């Protein structure tokens, strides 16, 4: 019996089961806890799929950000917000439940019958690696071959944060004094988190890692400091914070536009590519770290209950 296949099958079943429980659990806390478990299984699945870059991002975001965001939302939205249980009242319930298995069968057949790719992308990437300025293929795709995707994606992240800022209302709660133990842990864990973020940023050029994973770890450090009462929630961004939030996108844009005089957008001269990628990644790490931290820190504590108590 092939042990790896057994492992994969069990993991796939656990993915489906935890997703199912996250949807069907009778109250919000349970649903969120199951969703955190789902994220863990997903991290393992990325590991099995030879995608350590994604596993790193999933681990950092799932454990550091999504969990805290959703658990905070459980408190502020209230346990029973919007008749959370099961959703038995939707008029679409039966049609959707009847149609879903059919759709699943169609999609499964489509996946099984999917034609081979016309272009052998891994080979194309492999051939062009010499021009990319880095030796890790995922980083080469992310910041060189498909750089414009990443550029726009950074803009999308910033737009999401702006949207969130426009919606946030009510006073953010002040940081509460948490227990001495959590305090100490946050103080002890933050320096290694920053070191690990720096390591991931540096490693991205030749092995899995890079700006996104490093930024997620930095944001997680901010979340931990806030939970420990060492970092107050953000109310409105001051000038320095605004510069920090937008800086990564601005640096990326500048690097993208500069070669326009004699080449298309985002074509780095191969000799400079490595240095330019490191520059962009460093700026992105700081900026995205602030953006991702902002997603939690601007939201934290602005709640229904604050409205009620006023």
């Amino acid at each position, binding site marked *: 019996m092939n042990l790896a296949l057994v492992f994969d099958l069990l993991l796939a079943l656990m993915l489906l089961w935890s997703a199912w429980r996250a949807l069907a659990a009778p109250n919000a806390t349970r649903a969120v806890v199951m969703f955190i478990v789902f994220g863990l299984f997903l991290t393992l699945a990325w590991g099995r799929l030879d995608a350590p870059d994604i596993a790193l991002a999933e681990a950092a975001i799932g454990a550091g950000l999504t969990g805290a965001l959703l658990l905070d939302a459980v408190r502020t939205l209230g346990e029973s917000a919007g008749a959370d249980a099961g959703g038995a009242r939707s008029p679409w319930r039966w049609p959707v439940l009847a149609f879903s298995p059919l759709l699943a069968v169609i999609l499964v057949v489509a996946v099984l019958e999917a034609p081979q790719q016309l272009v052998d992308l891994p080979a194309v990437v492999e051939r062009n690696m010499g021009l990319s300025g880095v030796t890790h293929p995922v980083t080469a795709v992310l910041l060189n071959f498909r750089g414009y995707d990443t550029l726009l994606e950074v803009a999308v992240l910033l737009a999401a944060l702006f949207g969130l800022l426009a919606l946030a209302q009510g006073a953010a709660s002040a940081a509460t004094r948490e*227990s001495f*133990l*959590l305090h*100490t*842990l946050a103080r*002890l*864990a933050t320096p*290694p988190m920053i070191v690990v973020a720096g390591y991931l940023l540096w490693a991205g050029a030749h092995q899995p890692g890079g700006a996104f994973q490093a930024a997620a770890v930095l944001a997680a450090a901010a979340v931990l400091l806030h939970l420990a009462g060492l970092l107050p929630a953000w109310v409105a961004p001051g000038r320095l914070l605004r510069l920090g939030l937008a800086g990564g996108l601005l640096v990326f844009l500048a690097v993208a536009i500069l070669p326009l005089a004699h080449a298309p957008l985002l074509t780095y001269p191969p000799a400079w590519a490595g240095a330019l990628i490191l520059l962009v990644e460093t700026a992105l790490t700081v900026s995205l770290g602030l953006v991702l931290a902002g997603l939690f820190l601007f939201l934290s504590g602005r709640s229904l209950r604050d409205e009620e108590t006023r």
Partner: protein
Amino acid sequence: MPDSAREFFSAVFLVIGAFFYLAGTVGLLRFPDVYTRLHALTKADNLGLGFLVLGLAVQAESLAAALKLLLIWPLTLAASATVGYLIARRARALGISPWLRPEDR
């Protein structure tokens, strides 16, 4: 250390680690209340992962790789101690009373 000895120690430590994971899981399933289950959980964190990391560090190719592995352990220790304390404190604040032996009730 010769390779065969390294493999032997590695295997022994890995199996001990797996045993403590099993112990943690059994405790989580069989213990009567939150407080005792916390105790079971931290066995998996402290000893299970500890021995597992040790077992892998023995067979690591370089000192740096072994040190990276060994760094994971104290991080998990600190996290599990803190979270264990926070959950126990919260449980008390919510008025969950600890389980007592029938004769002590």
